[in-house]
């Protein structure tokens, strides 16, 4: 590969790693700060991606896909097209809202119960979402998938340079999500979440409505995942239920958080880049080491090893020292 090739590869890499970093930030709100065990990230990933895609993609050729009637019809409503890609933002907002609502329902049912019920429920919702998009062909063309998801401001930049634009979009989104997450967890709100993670009963005895805060945290994490899904959809531009295999849509994100350091937003972002680097980098290794299934295996080993050997990940949680307003 020449220099430009390597550079372009690097841009593609950062776009994907950045999108994954958004997911890792969402998961960090769930697990790292609140101790909520979500193993159905793929469900929120898919919901976010499909919601955004369906709102922005042109309707299909009815002659080609008889079953496919729904998708994209809304983006034809002309008067909302202000010459600017408003639909892109509407899609992202809708993705966030849909994920938030689903999280509200799941959380409302399970967050009063034992911790691990949430895990089972998220697993179930991920599978249900997958089955829905697989079977309801009228919604999103089933297993044949959604094509031609538009690029944001695709008409502005030439196709060969488009990735640079989208890199900026993803980095901006990552920055916004990071700041929002950082502010949330560093505020008293985040302090309550960490209190709940440390000892639910003690948090309740400190006057906090544990259920309400858990529900808020679960919804916020899911909303962030929905935004990640929407960005992913516009990057890949083709979605099918197979895209959201638990390996790349759930497991890898867990590995990212565990490796980077749960309870630390910088760690979550770092973990996303490190693990995605390992994931994509190993394909250049010779022979056996390039086997994608070896990477699959290693993701599992990485998670177990992180729990056993370094529960805090690379960065770990930082101790919040008092700001020292009135001291010394």
């Amino acid at each position, binding site marked *: 590969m020449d220099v430009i090739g390597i550079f372009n590869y690097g841009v593609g890499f950062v776009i994907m790693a950045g999108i994954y970093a958004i997911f890792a930030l969402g998961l960090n709100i769930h697990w790292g700060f609140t101790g909520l065990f979500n193993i159905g990230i793929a469900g929120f990933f898919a919901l976010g991606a499909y919601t955004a895609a369906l709102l922005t993609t042109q309707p299909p050729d009815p002659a080609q896909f008889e079953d496919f009637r729904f998708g994209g019809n809304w983006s034809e409503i002309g008067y909302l097209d202000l010459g600017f890609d408003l639909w892109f933002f509407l899609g992202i907002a809708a993705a966030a809202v849909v994920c938030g609502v689903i999280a509200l329902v799941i959380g409302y049912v399970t967050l009063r119960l*034992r911790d691990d019920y949430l895990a089972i429920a998220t697993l179930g919702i991920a599978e249900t979402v997958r089955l829905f998009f697989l079977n309801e062909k009228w919604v999103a063309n089933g297993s044949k998938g959604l094509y031609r998801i538009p690029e944001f401001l695709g008409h502005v930049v030439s196709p060969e340079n488009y990735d640079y634009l989208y890199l900026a979009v993803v980095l901006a989104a990552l920055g916004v999500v990071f700041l929002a997450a950082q502010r949330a967890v560093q505020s008293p709100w985040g302090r309550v979440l960490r209190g709940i993670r440390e000892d639910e009963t003690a948090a309740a005895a400190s006057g906090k409505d544990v259920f309400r805060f858990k529900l808020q945290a679960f919804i916020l994490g899911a909303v962030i995942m929905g935004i990640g899904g929407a960005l992913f959809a516009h990057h890949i531009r083709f979605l099918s239920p197979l895209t959201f295999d638990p390996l790349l849509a759930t497991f890898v994100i867990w590995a990212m958080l565990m490796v980077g350091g749960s309870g630390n937003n910088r760690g979550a972002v770092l973990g996303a880049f490190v693990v995605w680097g390992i994931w994509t980098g190993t394909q250049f290794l010779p022979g056996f080491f390039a086997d994608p299934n070896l990477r699959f295996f290693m993701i599992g*080993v990485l998670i*177990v090893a992180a*729990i056993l050997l370094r529960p805090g990940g690379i960065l770990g949680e930082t101790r919040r020292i008092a700001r020292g307003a009135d001291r010394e």
Partner: protein
Amino acid sequence: MNQSALNPGLRDIVRRIALGWTPAHTTIAIVVIAAAIGFLPFVKMGLVVNGVFLGAIIALGAVGLTLIYGILNFANVAHGDYMTMGAYATLFVVGSLLPRLGIESSGLGPFSFGYSLLIALPIGVAAIVILAIALEVAVYRRLRNRGVNAVVLAMASLGVAIALRGLVQMIWGGATYQYPRESRQVFQLPMDVRVPPDAIFIMVVTVVLVAGVYLVLNRTRMGKAMRATADNPDLALVSGIDTRRVVWWTWAMGAALAATAGILLAVFQAQLQPIMGWRFLIPLFAAVILGGIGNPYGALVAAFLIGVTSEVSTQWINPSYKPAVAFAMMIGMLLVRPRGIFGGGRN
């Protein structure tokens, strides 16, 4: 509020396996059975029978999962992948190992598979039992000694699940396999009920194994010690019960049941895929929660309930929604009665 959270001294480990059967249970059972019978005329018998076969496989997995849940006190997310591993280990024996020894067969009597599968089955099961105990020693025991909570153990089992599936894909790839088989005639019964001979084999294996679990839990020293440990781990310790061996036996039984369920699933759907076990987790956990966590008999009943309901649901909705039906049943149960049908589980 979790009541045990108020007893930090006892940690969160005091759990019971509810084996009691009270008049309330009888009433519920009668109502459910009456409702089912009333519903029967509208239902295709063939689907009910299919549901029973599916329920048998769910039952094998769920009984093992609920034992692990009850005694070791965490949700073993890798249970489905123990099923996958069991199916593939048996595939290795029946497809690669035995043929080298000149043992190859398919189509034993009315069954699609041959006697070589019957030889391979116990070998595959034994391999998974060894694997489960090795993982206990390498991973779970260390974490338990560190005093981590149940969710971290479940996390670790997620890692194990991923690694196991990765291993299966490294060795066999993502392709779909089959055990050596021959097509066989399906038994035609009245009311449009069709019974494949393999399904009868599945039922027999399930009945034998579940009866075996019952006997082990109620007649053997180790089985009673398992119930005792689930009931009151501290007292088990001072009674001189070797809790480490109890844990090993729990893994052994859970893994053996899971591996068998995996093999039977591979026979039933006539194919093996690396993801088969992970996809099966939802009906398994649904059965465990419906039956009350830690209650093997509850899991058994719930497994058949889920099997039949999700199969019968295909009369009206797309068959591929079967796992979603199981999931919906679980959510419904959590809303109404979080401790399960029999109330024996814990919230």
